[in-house]
């Protein structure tokens, strides 16, 4: 448990620092911008209570907002991501797995589960993020292309991070 807490804090610090120091400066005009910091929320322990999850997601969002000068936008997207995460875990994991404090990483869950998890979660996060940022349905196609291109960018980066940090352990979902 203690070990888990420390590794999550370290993961938080590293991902936020890389996000605002490096990925903030990357992008294809303003169409595609990557946000791989969401990996932190995806990799929180599975059995975390819903309330804690939402609080952590909100704080993560506000931290990123502070660096992007966009109060509330990332916070809203991270909260939506947390909700999607709860939903996804409930329908894909069995009860035992849902109550363990394991990290839902590539090595623990296998590629099929982790891949679906990352792709769908990133889409959910980016859809909320860009619509809250624009705050209207004007230029719908423009926003939509931002969402799709940015999601591809983010997903690729998350998989690269996944490959670099891959460690095969037990399999919780097959």
């Amino acid at each position, binding site marked *: 448990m203690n070990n888990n807490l420390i590794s999550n804090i370290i993961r938080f610090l590293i991902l936020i620092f890389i996000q*605002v*120091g490096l990925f*903030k*400066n*990357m*992008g294809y*005009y*303003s*169409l595609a*911008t990557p946000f791989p910091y969401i990996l932190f929320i995806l990799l929180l322990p599975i059995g975390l209570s*819903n*309330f804690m999850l*939402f609080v952590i*997601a*909100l704080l993560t*969002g*506000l931290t990123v*907002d*502070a*660096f*992007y*000068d*966009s*109060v*509330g*936008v990332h*916070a*809203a997207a991270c*909260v*939506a991501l*947390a*909700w999607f995460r*709860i*939903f996804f875990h409930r329908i894909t994991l069995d009860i035992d797995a849902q109550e363990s404090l394991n990290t839902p990483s590539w090595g623990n869950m296998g590629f099929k589960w982790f891949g679906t998890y990352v792709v769908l979660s990133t889409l959910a996060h980016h859809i909320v993020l860009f619509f*809250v*940022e*624009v*705050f209207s349905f004007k230029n719908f196609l*423009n926003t939509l292309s931002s969402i799709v291109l940015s999601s591809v960018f983010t997903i690729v980066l998350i998989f690269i991070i996944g490959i670099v940090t891959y460690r095969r352990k037990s399999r919780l979902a097959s």
Partner: protein
Amino acid sequence: MKNLWLFLVRYNAFFLFILFFVFSIVLVVRNNNYQRASFFNSSNAVVGSYFKKINSWKAYLALADDNQKLLEENALLRKQLQGFLAIDTNSQIQLIDSIEIDRYDFTVATVINNSIHQKSNYITLDKGSSHGVHANMGVITSNGIVGIVENVSKNFSTVRSLLHPDIRISVSLDSVSDAFGSLVWGNNIDSRYAMVRDIPNHVKAYVGQPIFTSGYSTLFPKGIKVGHVIEPEVISGESFKEIRILLTTDFSKLHHVYIVKDKLAEEKVSLEALNKDNE
């Protein structure tokens, strides 16, 4: 009562989601409505000093570029100085309004955080209220304009960049015709281009024509070059036309900027405020 409680517990994820999501949206809306100095932005001390540290490393990579820019600016200033020295004071009497000579103060600041990929872009500078910076001052660079100061803390300030959908700057087409319009970013995608709106239809613009600041607001001195026309008529057939311009400021390579302080700003603003009172 018990059933209600069970219902809430059963769907707690959903209700918690609604609670937290509404909280975030309230933050977004509040921030959009009032540009008040809030805690969660990059002019606060923790975020500001982190960006400052990163920038101290990045600055090395841009040294050659910066030197080149300074040399070019020096050359330009030297050329202008030559012009002043060459005026023969015997042949004509020069009358220069001394209040205009000393009207603007320029404070040098370093860009410690910059973004060009967002929908609303902001810049953080390493000068704050302790250096005499306050909100609503213009920011320029050696070859163009950058934005308007929005929030100020003790040692840092955030600037609303020209690449922000809510920014409008008064510009004139050239010094001869004095037709003026408002400069906006417009396309929200490319940091190199911007639009000039509300140009009267009878004014003819041509490709390559320079655009200058008009000096009507207290933000920027008159006659700073903003960009060049590349598409003289984006929308035509209405009473006003739009012009697409190529900006002279390279937003992806901002390092040193000048914050403009207009000494007559207070006088002008308070005089103009009287007009609104009378309406």
